[in-house]
């Protein structure tokens, strides 16, 4: 049967080209690999080869024609025994691939005219009433979470700089080498990009690695493997290949360690589809979320904080305590203003709420706990009650977590806001070393209080 020879696309962006020259004429016999024509694009002149064999029955587009659209028939190739006269009858219209119905993107929840129904939120308490509690530091809670998960399955292993013999640069992995041995608690050289890649590969290969970065500042060496390899492979493989891995370590400012060692990466990682991001404040959340993170079939960025490591909190004394991702925790109920924070930002939020209470301002304080997924319904429900919102974080203002929350609340609950949302963030500067400057570079409790007074017009 006669086949059409179509104008080829010679680059991913080519839409049309010039048929510069025919190197065959009607009646010529061609076989695959023979050069048929020269085609010019805006970038280059390329030779166009035959794929099938046969006889050139008819040239449909003469040489020298410009603006020939990709996929237009430029000639007809005859099979043995066919004549050029059959051509007109043949030449079926080029078949197009069936197009899938474009699915609607999840519709943005546009603010319907108020009154609007409060979003449904999961209000089950983190642990059942009457559960025995014990005091634990965040450091101990993190270690217990890893140890419990490593006991649960030997697919879980820990890798990083100084995690084994040194017991962790910040002593999070204390005792793990003794209990699990050097096969599962592995000291690496200082080669973040390399070992992050090896860990991701091992997750593709069926393991469940926990990668400790000595601090998240050094994860920048490895960010390509985190984002291009860990976060995207599930999607690129059409769901065949997941990457169950946890990247964890201290994030954000410690104390006086200067610009290269003091960065909050919450907003950076929160942007990446395919990653999950947790940033716990309390010890119970550190434990429950880390256990969930290790079990999660996806890559999880787990942002800890050096200053919080030594703080103690109540932790439920349960055999298997987990906290789900995407469920915020209300630390303090209030009616005048909603303060949303996460990680170490909670320190300022809670301190501010305490002081505001003395001034008769009742603040509701929400700890997001995970940033991706983010429990916006809990925030919105609270804003529908208080009508005012302040966000608190240590990261920089431009493209901050707070600015995302503000935009979502504006889109989803505009009619409930009685004042513009105020985002409290770190200052828009690299972290200085000098003690006095560093104090000013960070977000402060006083700034949170001032922000609350601003939105409550006091």
């Amino acid at each position, binding site marked *: 049967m006669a086949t059409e020879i179509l104008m080829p696309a010679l680059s991913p962006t080519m839409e049309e080209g010039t048929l510069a020259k025919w190197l065959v004429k009607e009646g010529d016999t061609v076989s695959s690999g023979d050069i048929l024509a020269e085609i010019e694009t805006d970038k280059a002149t390329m030779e166009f080869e035959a794929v099938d064999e046969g006889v050139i029955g008819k040239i449909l587009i003469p040489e020298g024609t410009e603006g020939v659209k990709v996929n237009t028939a430029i000639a007809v190739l005859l099979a043995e025994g066919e004549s050029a006269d059959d051509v007109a009858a043949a030449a079926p219209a080029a078949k197009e691939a069936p197009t899938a119905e474009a699915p609607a993107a999840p519709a943005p929840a546009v603010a319907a005219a108020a009154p609007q129904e409060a979003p449904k939120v999961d209000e089950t308490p983190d642990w059942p009433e009457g559960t025995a509690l014990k005091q634990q530091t965040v450091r101990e809670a993190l270690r217990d979470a890893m140890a419990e998960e490593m006991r649960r399955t030997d697919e879980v292993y820990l890798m990083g*700089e100084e995690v084994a013999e040194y017991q962790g640069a910040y002593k999070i992995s204390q005792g793990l080498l003794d209990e699990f041995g050097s096969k599962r608690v592995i000291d690496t050289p200082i080669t973040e990009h390399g070992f992050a890649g090896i860990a991701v590969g091992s997750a593709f290969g069926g393991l469940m690695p926990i990668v400790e970065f000595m601090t998240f500042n050094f994860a920048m060496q490895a960010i390509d493997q985190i984002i291009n390899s860990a976060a995207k492979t599930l999607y690129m493989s059409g769901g065949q290949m997941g990457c169950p891995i946890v990247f964890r370590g201290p994030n954000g400012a410690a104390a006086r360690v200067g610009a290269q*060692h003091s960065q909050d990466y919450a907003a950076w990682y929160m942007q990446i589809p395919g990653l999950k991001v947790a940033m716990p404040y309390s010890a119970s959340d550190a434990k429950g979320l880390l256990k969930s993170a290790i079990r999660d079939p996806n890559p999880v960025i787990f942002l800890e904080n050096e200053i919080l490591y030594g703080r103690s909190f109540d932790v439920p004394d349960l055999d298997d305590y987990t906290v789900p991702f995407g469920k915020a925790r209300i630390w303090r109920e209030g009616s005048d203003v909603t303060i949303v924070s996460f990680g170490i930002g909670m320190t300022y939020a809670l301190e501010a709420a305490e002081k505001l209470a003395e001034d008769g301002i009742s603040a509701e304080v929400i700890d997001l706990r995970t940033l991706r997924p983010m429990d916006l319904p809990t925030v919105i429900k609270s804003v529908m009650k208080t009508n005012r919102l302040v966000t608190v974080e240590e990261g920089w203002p431009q493209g901050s977590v707070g600015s995302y929350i503000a935009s979502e609340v504006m889109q989803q609950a505009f009619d409930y806001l009685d004042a513009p949302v105020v985002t409290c963030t770190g200052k828009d500067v690299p972290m*200085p070393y000098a003690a006095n400057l560093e104090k000013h570079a960070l977000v402060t409790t006083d700034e949170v209080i001032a922000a609350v007074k601003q939105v409550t017009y006091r």
Partner: protein
Amino acid sequence: MAARKTTKKPNVSAEELTSHYREMLLIRRFEEKAGQLYGMGLIGGFCHLYIGQEAVVVGLEAAAEEGDKRITSYRDHGHMLACGMDPDGVMAELTGREGGYSKGKGGSMHMFSKEKHFYGGHGIVGAQVPLGAGLAFADKYKGNGRVTFAYFGDGAANQGQIYETFNMAALWQLPVIFVIENNQYAMGTAQARSTSTPELFTRGEAFGIPGEAVDGMNVLTVKDAGERAVAHCRAGKGPYILEVKTYRYRGHSMSDPAKYRTREEVQKMRSERDPIEQVREMLLTGKHASEDDLKAIDKEIKDIVNKSADFSKESPEPHLDELWTDIYAETIPQHSA
């Protein structure tokens, strides 16, 4: 390309020996003082002392010429003093004061001096190595005959970007000396636990970069090796690797419990190989100096260090407006010099 043993005793003048002694002692005493100020809470954050490694920078600086460049990691106080930066300005940066080299904004790990061609002070392990090759690239581009000393540790020697740099430095024949300060530990990791091949000076072989191992506790052998490396670079033959075997006496930083090595190991190094003691011996046995001469130098150094400590306490904290300066430049600072 193999390790070159330097057995011959280099000829050295009394003057030269005395100056090595003075410079190494300055670093030692300065670092001891910094440790003390850290303990008093006047210095914060990370502070990595150079005690034990003094012969490396003093030997190599003796091989450098005016205009040559240097760049290193966070363990940088020794490099700054050796290239002639003012102890007052360094100490005041450690205390985070206005009079510090970075106006108090950089701290121990991040200091710079354009005047002395000291390009930092970098906190990210390994990152200074391509930067050093970049400085050499600029020098080669300008054809000014300068060389760059790019210092890094045994731990850093495993970072991937170093091998990318080796390849380009060799490909483009950049005048850069890669100085591996092998002090045997990267934090708590002994070198053997992190490297598949311990001979770091051979790491350039695959790229055709010559390398040699050097006794880094002996300032004269360091200088000698430095001169060979400098001559190689200045002759336009491309990069050179020096693996300088040294030892740090103190912890990795001020918060290191140092459980990864024995006290005896440190003590043995101190008593048998100390770089300052070695020169002191040479000065005394060669009758280049008397005990009294050396005492006078000790006193002179002590005064310099005490003065820097005083300065670092008296210099005021930076003005709060400094928080908002130096984030963007109006002109290219490197061009305005």
